C-alpha cells in the first residue's frame, strides 16, 4: 500500500502512476517535481541531491504513514525521490496517491510533498555558471 524509493536512476513516472491504481480508488493525484532552469533569479545548470539514505527512507515512510493516518481513505501511496546529478527538466520527486474521492487525493498528496520538504534528509546543491549553493542552508 505504501511504496517508497530513493534512487540514482531516472524515475519512471508512468510506472509510479500505475503503482497507485486500485479498483476502489477513483481519484489519483500526482505531484512531480522537476529541475527548473532558474532559482531565485539565477540560471541553474545542474543540481546534485545528496541523501542520508537510511534516514531518508525511514522518514519518507513515516510521512506516508502519517498521511494514511490522517486520511484513512487513502488506498495507495508511492513516493520516489531521485539522488545524484540532475539536469534541467529531470524528475526529482514523484508523489502519487489514490483515494475514492478527489478532495482527499489533493490534500494527502500536498501534505506528503510539503512534509517531505521539511523532514526528509535530502540536500540539494544548485550549480550556476558562477558558483554553487546548498539550497536553504543559510537564512
Amino acid at each position, binding site marked *: 500500500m505504501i511504496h517508497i524509493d530513493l534512487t540514482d536512476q531516472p524515475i519512471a513516472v508512468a510506472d509510479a502512476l500505475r503503482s497507485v491504481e486500485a479498483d476502489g480508488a477513483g481519484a489519483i493525484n500526482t505531484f512531480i517535481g522537476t529541475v527548473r532552469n532558474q532559482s531565485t533569479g539565477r540560471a541553474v545548470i545542474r543540481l546534485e541531491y545528496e541523501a542520508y539514505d537510511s534516514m531518508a527512507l525511514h522518514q519518507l515512510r513515516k510521512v506516508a504513514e502519517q498521511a494514511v493516518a490522517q486520511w484513512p481513505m487513502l488506498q495507495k501511496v508511492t513516493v520516489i*525521490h531521485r539522488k545524484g546529478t540532475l539536469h534541467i527538466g529531470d524528475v526529482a520527486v514523484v508523489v502519487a496517491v489514490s483515494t475514492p474521492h478527489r478532495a482527499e487525493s489533493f490534500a494527502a498528496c500536498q501534505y506528503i510533498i510539503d512534509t517531505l520538504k521539511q523532514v526528509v534528509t535530502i540536500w540539494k546543491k544548485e550549480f550556476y555558471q558562477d558558483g554553487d549553493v*546548498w539550497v536553504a542552508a543559510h537564512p
Partner: protein
Amino acid sequence: MHLNIALFGIAREIVGQPTLEIDAPAGQSARGLLAELHARYPALAALSSLAVAVNNEYAADDTPLHERDEIALIPPVSGG
C-alpha cells in the same frame, strides 16, 4: 565515550570530511554535542538550522547519546 558522527551536505563541506570521531563525556546530550561542534567549526552556527539525528530519528535537545547510536548531523534539508 567515543561517538561516530555522519555528516551531510553543507555540514560535511564545513567539516571537510564525511564522518567525524569525537570523544564526549558519558551521557552527552544532543544539545551538548552541538555546542561542542559549534565551538570547533564556527561556520556551523551560520546555518539556518542544525539538528542531531539518532538512529534515523530527529533527536530532542536533551536526548542522551550512546556509543552504539548511529548519530548524524542534519543541516537544513532541501529535498523535493
